[in-house]
């Protein structure tokens, strides 16, 4: 424990450097602004603002990105509360009671409790992160290539199987992502694979291009529809943005209860902030003495999901930082950027680059404080962004995406790839194929294949190596469970529905 505290203190000495403080503040403000814009969630926010970090060192880059990430999580709920349009999926639950509160003239309380709950949720989760990061990363050092391959299979399977709607589509998305990762010269044999004679494809497709294309361009394409529908006007003048004692009394326990829940769900690959905030909302509704007030502007119905949502964003960093496996779209983007800067997130990050790992963890605490300061008194100024019409905003996002793509490799070939992946993101959304498994697969694809081949080389081609250790067997069981559980759950709910229907038919007949 003392060792952890010492590492954390060292982390604070990194995070409290004036330059890093400036970056986390800047990242937080930019993230809040981007997060507020309907359709542009944290993943898109980090993807679009990524070029800002290209010339920074890895520590500064990661601190800025986490600032953007939290900022986007803080900001996502502003548009939910004020215009009933969530910035991203995780802010959806904030529309349930946040918007009714604003309609009742309590926008100030809604904005304040959303920032307070986000701050508390994020801080509690950061404490969990401090306690768990070292043990998890030490445990991960026991992984050999076979276990590492299986860990990635498990993480990808969980992400694919938790995809909303259809698991098969999730797996299709995942496999396509892995296929994209196989394009280029094979690192082990030096053979060209799937380059189709195109010289520029020999170095492979940069995952950042896939990410910016699918998240930024794809989302802008999807947002063109809203340009046709017109935009809502947001309230931009407020009284004092704060809550009453009574409101705090109602909110404190929901906030404290939802933070650990959010952290746990966030740490699971594929689950993320949306699931965390919806579960926290439902939990509070079930526990409430006045569930009928939920949906009508109950402050606890806003506080709980906001706390869970921010705790989940911290939780999602656990698998990325300690195992090198991104658990969500946003952390995948962040991991992609780190890989580009030559830093491999994973268990060795804590031993080889403790300044980065602990600096980032310390900056979570600082970032949360800064974002609370920014989001409470300055909320009135920041929400003015919502009055920028989409017809001007989306072209600007497009411009940022293209310049970001160029900055990665100084090549205009990436422009064409960006267009292709933008279209792909749009079509995938239309045909209801989730994009997150594809993004995660593109990021881990190469490492996954290398681990697979390394394991086979160690075992001289014997596949039993993938079931040799207890750890490997546990990971296989976890993968099977992640696939089987949603199937069993869906069959059970179908069975329950048919039983209820037959009961109703019987009672009608009698």
């Amino acid at each position, binding site marked *: 424990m003392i060792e952890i505290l010492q590492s954390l203190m060292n982390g604070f000495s990194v995070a409290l450097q004036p330059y890093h403080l400036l970056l986390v503040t800047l990242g937080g403000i930019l993230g809040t602004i981007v997060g507020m814009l309907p359709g542009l969630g944290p993943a898109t926010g980090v993807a679009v603002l990524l070029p800002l970090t290209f010339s920074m060192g890895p520590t500064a880059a990661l601190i800025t990105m986490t600032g953007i990430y939290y900022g986007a999580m803080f900001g996502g709920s502003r548009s939910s509360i004020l215009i009933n349009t969530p910035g991203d999926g995780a802010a959806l639950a904030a529309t349930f009671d946040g918007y009714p509160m604003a309609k009742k003239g309590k926008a100030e309380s809604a904005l304040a409790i959303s920032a307070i709950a986000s701050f508390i949720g994020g801080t509690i989760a950061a404490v969990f992160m401090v306690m768990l990061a070292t043990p998890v990363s030490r445990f991960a050092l026991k992984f050999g290539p076979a276990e590492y391959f299986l860990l990635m299979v498990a993480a990808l399977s969980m992400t694919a199987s938790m995809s909303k709607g259809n698991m098969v589509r999730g797996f299709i998305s995942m496999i396509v992502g892995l296929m994209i990762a196989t394009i280029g010269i094979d690192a082990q044999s030096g053979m060209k694979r799937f380059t189709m004679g195109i010289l520029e494809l020999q170095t492979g497709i940069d995952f950042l291009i896939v990410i910016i294309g699918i998240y930024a361009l794809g989302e802008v394409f999807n947002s063109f529809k809203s340009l046709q529908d017109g935009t809502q006007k947001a309230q931009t003048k407020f009284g004092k943005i704060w809550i009453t004692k009574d409101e705090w009394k109602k909110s404190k326990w929901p906030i404290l209860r939802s933070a650990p829940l959010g952290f746990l769900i966030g740490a699971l690959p594929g689950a993320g902030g949306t699931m965390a905030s919806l579960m926290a909302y439902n939990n509070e509704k079930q526990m409430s003495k006045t569930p009928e007030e939920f949906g009508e502007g109950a402050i606890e119905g806003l506080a709980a999901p906001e706390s869970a949502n921010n705790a989940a964003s911290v939780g999602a960093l656990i698998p990325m930082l300690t195992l090198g496996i991104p658990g969500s779209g946003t952390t995948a983007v962040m991991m992609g950027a780190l890989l580009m800067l030559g830093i491999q997130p994973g268990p060795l990050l804590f031993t080889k680059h403790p300044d980065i790992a602990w600096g980032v963890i310390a900056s979570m605490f600082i970032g949360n404080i800064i974002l609370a300061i920014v989001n409470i008194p300055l909320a009135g100024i920041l929400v003015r962004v919502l009055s920028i019409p989409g017809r001007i905003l989306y072209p600007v996002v497009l*411009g940022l995406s293209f*310049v970001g793509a*160029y900055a990665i490799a100084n090549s205009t070939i990436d422009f064409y790839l960006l267009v292709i992946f933008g279209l792909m993101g749009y079509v995938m959304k239309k045909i209801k194929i989730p994009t997150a498994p594809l993004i995660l697969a593109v990021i881990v694809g190469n490492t996954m294949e290398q681990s697979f081949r390394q394991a086979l080389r160690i075992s001289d081609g014997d596949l039993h190596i993938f079931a040799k250790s207890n750890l490997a067997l546990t990971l296989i069981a976890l993968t099977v469970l992640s696939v089987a559980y949603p199937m069993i759950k869906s069959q059970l709910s179908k069975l329950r529905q048919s039983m209820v229907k037959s009961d109703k038919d019987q009672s009608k007949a009698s």
Partner: protein
Amino acid sequence: MNNQKSDFSALTGIVTTLVGIIYLIMCYFVPRAPMGDPLDPIYFPAGLGVLLTGFGVILFIKSDKSVMVQSVKNLNQMSGSDKQVTKMIGITCVCGTLYGLIFEHAGFVISTIIFLSSILFMTNGKKIATNLIVSALFSIGIFILFNHGLGITLPTAFELF
């Protein structure tokens, strides 16, 4: 287009299966490794090809084919706004491609002003002054930020800043 009735699962299944098969064929043409197991660079991709083909078939089998036929028919009866969105996406893709073609020749500032104002004309209408001001401010602002603030060199047609 009536979105509620749109379900392209069967079509998605067919396309996925085809992509899987094409990928498998391409795996066959991947050069063999000169050292060690010659098929080493192929095993992993081949496995992916098989899996994708399999999932494509599963999706096709599970889908409601009659709904897909209706969905494809619905595509021909797109609403005005859907047609407009499709047109906007098409224009953006063409502009993005042209942007790539002129980017290094015309330089960042000029090509971005052209690209952005074209997109703004599409989204914001014929508000010439607003569109040009936004495009110019963005292009010059980003150029200064990248070249002087972030140390990332963007191409120039001629030295301006």
